[in-house]
């Protein structure tokens, strides 16, 4: 039997696994499902069609599955994978069109906000007061520092680090240190790559590619260097992934320009 506080309100149609604990003053909506081993602290609100994977930890005062402001009733979908930690005062909005999808092993620190329809990968760390916009995409192993923000529909590539107070407005490349507003590529996120077990050779190849592609000041990509590296058939697979991401970003940017006109 799940351990539910006498002061919690859990709607009878909610699906709650056997070894779940739910603290006092929580509200669990009628279409919520909570996987095994989840620990829900006190004063937590779970709304809409939220599903929590196993071993999710939710800390006091958080709201998951809320409708975005002005969107009426909470009926969107919000899917969390396994072993995520949702700290105090976090808000995760449910998607209005598609579901908000969150992978596994992420840490959402205090007062971070995840917008409706955001797609978040695995092993991300989102520091206090970070904001992920609506339908933004965050790939795996991304780390965001305090007050950093990702605009609606923007994308942050895998293994990147977004520095404090930075604002990502468009597509940011993978493996990068991103800083400032508008965001700039400051260099390769060597520390994270080493921590994630990248080999010395891969890091060296990526560093060389970064030196050719970015001038160290702006977010501007050198087009001729990108074309040259992308044409190189024997390129490192990680460098290939970087160039693919940069080309996709360029395509998305030009397509977006067309729509605006």
């Amino acid at each position, binding site marked *: 039997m799940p351990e539910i*506080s006498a*002061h919690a309100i859990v709607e009878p149609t909610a699906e709650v696994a056997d070894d779940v604990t739910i*603290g*006092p*003053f929580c509200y669990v909506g009628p279409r919520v499902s909570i996987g095994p081993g989840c620990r829900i*602290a*006190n*004063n937590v609100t779970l709304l809409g069609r939220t599903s929590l994977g196993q071993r999710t930890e939710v*800390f*006091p*005062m958080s709201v998951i599955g809320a409708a975005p402001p002005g969107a009426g009733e909470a009926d969107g979908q919000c899917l969390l994978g396994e072993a995520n930690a949702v*700290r*105090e*005062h976090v808000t995760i909005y449910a998607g209005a069109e598609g579901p908000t999808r969150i992978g596994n092993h992420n*840490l959402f*620190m*205090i*007062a971070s906000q995840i917008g409706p329809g955001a797609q978040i990968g695995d092993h991300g760390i989102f520091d*206090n*007061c970070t904001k992920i916009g609506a339908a933004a995409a965050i790939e795996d192993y991304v780390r965001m*520092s*305090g*007050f950093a923000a990702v605009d609606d529909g923007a994308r942050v590539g895998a293994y990147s680090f977004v*520095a*404090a*107070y930075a604002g990502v407005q468009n597509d940011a490349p993978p493996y990068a240190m991103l*800083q*400032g*507003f508008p965001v*700039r590529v*400051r260099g390769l996120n060597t520390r994270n790559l080493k921590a994630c077990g990248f080999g010395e050779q891969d890091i060296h190849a990526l560093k060389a590619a970064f030196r050719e592609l970015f001038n160290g000041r702006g977010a501007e990509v050198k087009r001729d260097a990108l074309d040259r590296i992308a044409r190189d058939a024997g390129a490192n697979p990680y460098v290939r992934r970087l160039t693919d991401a940069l080309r996709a970003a360029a395509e998305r940017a030009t397509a977006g320009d067309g729509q605006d006109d």
Partner: protein
Amino acid sequence: MTDLSVLREIDPAARIAPDATVGLYSVIGPDVIIGPGTAVGRRVTIVGHTHLGSGNVIGEGCVLGAAPQDLKYAGGPTMLRIGHRNRFGREVTAHIGTESGGALTRIGDDNVLMDGCHVAHDCFVDDRAYLGRSVLLAGHIRVQTGARIEDLSGLHHFVTVGRFSLVGPHTPVRRDVPPFTDFRSFDHDWESPPSVCGVHEAGIAAARLPREQEKELRFALKELFDDESALQTKIEQLVNMGVEGEAARLCEFCLRSLQGLYGRCREVYRGKAPPEARRLSPEAGIDTKEHYDEL
């Protein structure tokens, strides 16, 4: 009438002074001590080994004593100690310490923490400090007496904010803030990091220094920060001149910051307990029962 008095979840093991109040929908854990005259607002969560002194006001939605947001934390019984007469706004969060960082987070007396502030694991906030809205203190930070940190500033791990200094609004602080200075950024670009841009007049007034000391301090501040180049040489010159009191303390502070990694003197405590924790931690001989009486 509905009996609202039951809508609180207070663990019977918690020790709450008879005249302390706890608001509706609040949750108090078993290892919590709340001193006399402390008013805890609605929807407040106080868990972990958290001790509050007397006369504190805790605003709505605060969460005190939750586990640190540090991946190194192994779940040990570390502490959060809050002194007397502090005022917390709404949704303030403060965490207990980590085992490797000294196992103690400490907030002193007469501090004001505005809405949305966060005091992370192993921080030491001394007395009479002001933290504006949504100020984020990362782990292992020391905020010294009388410091004022304006809204939306974020402080890096291991930073020290000096006595009676001012951190401007929306400032990313990555190095130590010298005492009695006005530290701010005018541009949030990474190419122009925030810096000392003057003297914090209100801080000097609040410190109530003797006239001679104030004069000497102003002289030292002008010498050091009119142009921050060759700081070490200038500190040595001032020390050789034989400055005393606050000016000497300022020189010592700046010298320690210069010698620390990335301009942060507390970096040396990475992975070990700082002297403050050794002095104040329960292992140093403060019995919880005695501590309760002392409150």
